[in-house]
């Protein structure tokens, strides 16, 4: 009996931790889906918007001595500036190039930025960004304390997801869809495809920045931390976005949270003997979803 109870305990712990980790994945997934919906590009630089934001905020906080709120703003501004610059310097000149070229180009942007971080900021390699609040035990779910920082992540996720869903129901959202489906016709009705492109990359970079700034304080950060490594959210974010259907905002949230949960189930004691159980479970569930519902959980079948 004791074993059984502890298994339930483990499950509920895994669920809570999974939702929390998944929250960051979902934020990254939302940014990926936004850019994909608007320009058909798989953006491998999405998580780097977040890392850059974190380094900028850290510098503002530690070196310039700015207040925490201002430092976060500096971080967001740096992330968004990187998004806009990526759009202007890389995406727009390659507007008519095959999408796979753009995919490689965004991967190049990510590698370049990570390279610069290793070059300029690798000593010390591990840094710590202060959390928004140090309170760790205010909220308890299934007997597990959830820190304020993690609560903030989930609240920000809910707010941004709702905001994006509303936006895509508004005339502005319609214009974004129009620009992605038929750029020439969009220009002809008066929608500036360039402005739409800047807007979507700017908002995607904002989402990436939030993912970075909110998740960095949970452990420490290092060059490229949000793209790869133990706290990497890019590949889980992609997985979540694909599971959710790649074009659906609610799908990105559900997919991101699912990946977080499945991944943390891989940490159950019962799976202790299997090395890499976490990744194994995540990719197995991705395969299952794609086999059963190729368009993703909330995606629409290709028209």
């Amino acid at each position, binding site marked *: 009996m004791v074993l059984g109870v502890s298994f339930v305990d483990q499950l509920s712990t895994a669920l809570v931790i999974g939702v929390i980790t998944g929250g960051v994945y979902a934020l990254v997934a939302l940014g990926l889906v936004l850019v994909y919906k608007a320009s058909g590009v798989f953006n491998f630089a999405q998580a780097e918007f977040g890392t850059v934001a974190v380094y900028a905020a850290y510098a503002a906080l530690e070196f310039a001595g700015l207040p925490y709120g201002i430092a976060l703003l500096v971080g967001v501004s740096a992330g968004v500036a990187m998004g806009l610059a990526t759009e202007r310097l890389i995406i727009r000149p390659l507007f008519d190039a095959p999408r796979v070229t753009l995919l490689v180009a965004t991967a190049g942007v990510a590698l370049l930025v990570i390279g610069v971080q290793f070059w300029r900021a690798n000593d010390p390699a591990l840094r710590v960004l202060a959390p928004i609040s140090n309170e760790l035990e205010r909220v308890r779910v299934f007997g597990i304390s959830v820190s304020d920082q993690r609560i903030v992540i989930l609240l920000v996720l809910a707010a941004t997801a709702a905001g994006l869903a509303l936006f895509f129901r508004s005339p502005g959202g319609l214009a974004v869809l129009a620009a992605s489906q038929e750029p*020439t*016709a969009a*220009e*002809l009705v008066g*929608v500036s495809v360039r402005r739409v492109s800047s807007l979507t990359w700017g908002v995607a970079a904002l989402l990436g920045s939030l993912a970075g700034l909110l998740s960095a304080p949970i452990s420490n950060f290092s060059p490229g931390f949000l793209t790869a490594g133990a706290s990497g959210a890019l590949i889980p974010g992609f997985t979540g976005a694909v599971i959710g259907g790649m074009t659906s905002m609610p799908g990105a949230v559900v997919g991101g949270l699912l990946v977080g949960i499945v991944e943390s189930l891989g940490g159950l004691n019962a799976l202790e003997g299997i090395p890499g159980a976490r990744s194994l479970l995540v990719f197995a569930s991705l395969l299952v979803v794609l086999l059963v519902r190729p368009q993703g959980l909330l995606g629409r079948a290709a028209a």
Partner: protein
Amino acid sequence: MALLEVRDLVVGYGPHPVLHGVSLDIEAGETCVLFGLNGAGKTTTVSAIAGLLAPSSGTITFDGQPIAGRPAAALVASGISLSPEGRRVFARLTVEQNLQLGGWVRRKDAAVARTQRQLVFDYFPRLAERGDQVAGTLSGGEQQMLAIGRALMSQPRLLLVDEASLGLSPTVARTVFEVMDRINDDGTTVLIVEQNAGVLPYADRVLIMEKGTLVFTGVGDEIRDADLRSTYLGA
């Protein structure tokens, strides 16, 4: 002064010009037909007028204002609207959403949107029945109607329609021409790019292009008298 005046227009893709100095006038209130075979430069001409292509030289004047080189998104607000070659409807959006986007530059004026939408449904009752249908699932004729309807939503003074009848059955093509005629009667100046001689009875002015230059311009009886088909269209 004509509503649209094009002078010595040279347009090319890359270094090679497709149009070699085209000059034409379109008077307010008329239906003008731009004829020619594939590759004659018709689409290039209307694309330059609508702002999709920047001319390398020459002038385009609309209602007294020079507009050459201004982007399409700006020109639609000044009253030039193009229903493009290949229709280019927003395939994954509904008919209603396509029309809503057509009125993008007038979106702050709900009354205009309502009036134009009613007008479009009046011209093309079929679109009213298909309001919630995704545009990509419409028939070719319906997509053409939607493309023209979308172009009308901005309440243009000059409506350009590129390849109005391409790929349509003769019956549907005639319906489209008849509606274009009504649109013109209701006060909109119309330029139709065509290869289908069935449009001729509706034309006030006919322009014929060959290899990037205008080889014939005629109004009224000149259109009826000239043997356009055998001389220029190889038919």
